[in-house]
């Protein structure tokens, strides 16, 4: 592991030790965040899968109903019947904070609450199949919106998990080893200096004693 190029001084050592403490703490926090995000994501995505299966199945039913309706009626009449929608959907979007990820929460309101009053056409020249198709479709819509909300949340969470994981790994495998290596290098260098100094002092002392002895002899 490469070490950071720094001057091996005591000041640098204290600085690096502080950085290491911060890095370790950050690593722990990010790791917790990642684990929690992952747990929530897996919950969400499992539900998402089930819901999607359900919605896809329901939509296929709607399509087959429409197919029959189109077979019974001419396409002009069908188009004319659906030309001016009576129902209006208004959508409110708020956000929910899931582990510091802003996920959208969709809240929709239909203009008329009456389920039997959603057909934008008179019943005279349309077939009953069309009614059935529209009715099932209006049943699917809440599920479709839920699906949209869930799927978007899953995408956003996935992105956040990817980012967090990258940060955790960068700290764990790059920054923290680098800091520990550098700290070790500086301590060893300082110790070595210390030993060098001690030996030098002992040598000087020996020389001074020798000189004093010679002076006494004369």
């Amino acid at each position, binding site marked *: 592991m490469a070490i950071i190029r720094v001057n091996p001084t005591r000041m640098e050592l204290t600085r690096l030790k502080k950085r290491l403490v911060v890095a370790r703490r950050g690593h722990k926090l990010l790791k917790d965040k990642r684990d929690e995000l992952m747990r929530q994501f897996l919950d969400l995505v499992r539900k998402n899968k089930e819901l999607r299966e359900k919605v896809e199945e329901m939509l*296929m039913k709607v399509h087959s109903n*429409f197919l029959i309706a189109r077979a019974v009626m001419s396409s002009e009449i069908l188009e004319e019947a*659906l030309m001016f*929608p009576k129902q*209006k959907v208004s959508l409110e979007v708020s956000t929910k904070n899931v582990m510091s990820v802003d*996920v959208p929460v969709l809240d929709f309101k239909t203009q008329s609450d009456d389920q039997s009053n*959603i057909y934008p056409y008179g019943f005279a020249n349309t077939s009953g199949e069309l009614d059935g198709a529209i009715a099932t479709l209006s049943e699917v819509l809440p599920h*479709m919106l839920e699906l949209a909300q869930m799927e978007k949340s*899953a995408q956003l969470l996935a*992105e956040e998990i990817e980012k967090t994981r990258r940060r955790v790994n960068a700290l764990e495998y790059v920054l923290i080893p680098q800091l520990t290596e550098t700290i070790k290098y500086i301590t060893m260098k300082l110790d070595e200096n210390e030993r060098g100094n001690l030996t030098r002092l002992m040598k000087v002392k020996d020389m001074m004693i020798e000189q004093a002895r010679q002076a006494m002899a004369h």
Partner: protein
Amino acid sequence: MYKIGVIGDKDSILGFKALGLSVFPVTQPSEAEKVLHELVKEQYAVVYITEQIAKDIVKTIDLYKDNRLPAIIPIPGNQGVLGIGMCGVKKSVERAVGADILFRDE
């Protein structure tokens, strides 16, 4: 006040009009791309795209994946389920976990 849009071939999406959603019938992928770009700029919170159209403009859809809005959701058209929607779920699992752990058994 946000809106909901539906993009796809005319026959698949006609019914959504009756429910008060904004419907954009398209035939060509390039046309769909143009419509999608416009919808993103306007106040659309959810855009549903039929899988038949979505399969040709996956790149454009991915472009808006990390934005908070709109949520671009593939739905099956009248020609059956192509599995693109499921594939999207699978992709986000792979992105988050690194491996596919939900669809292993299929």
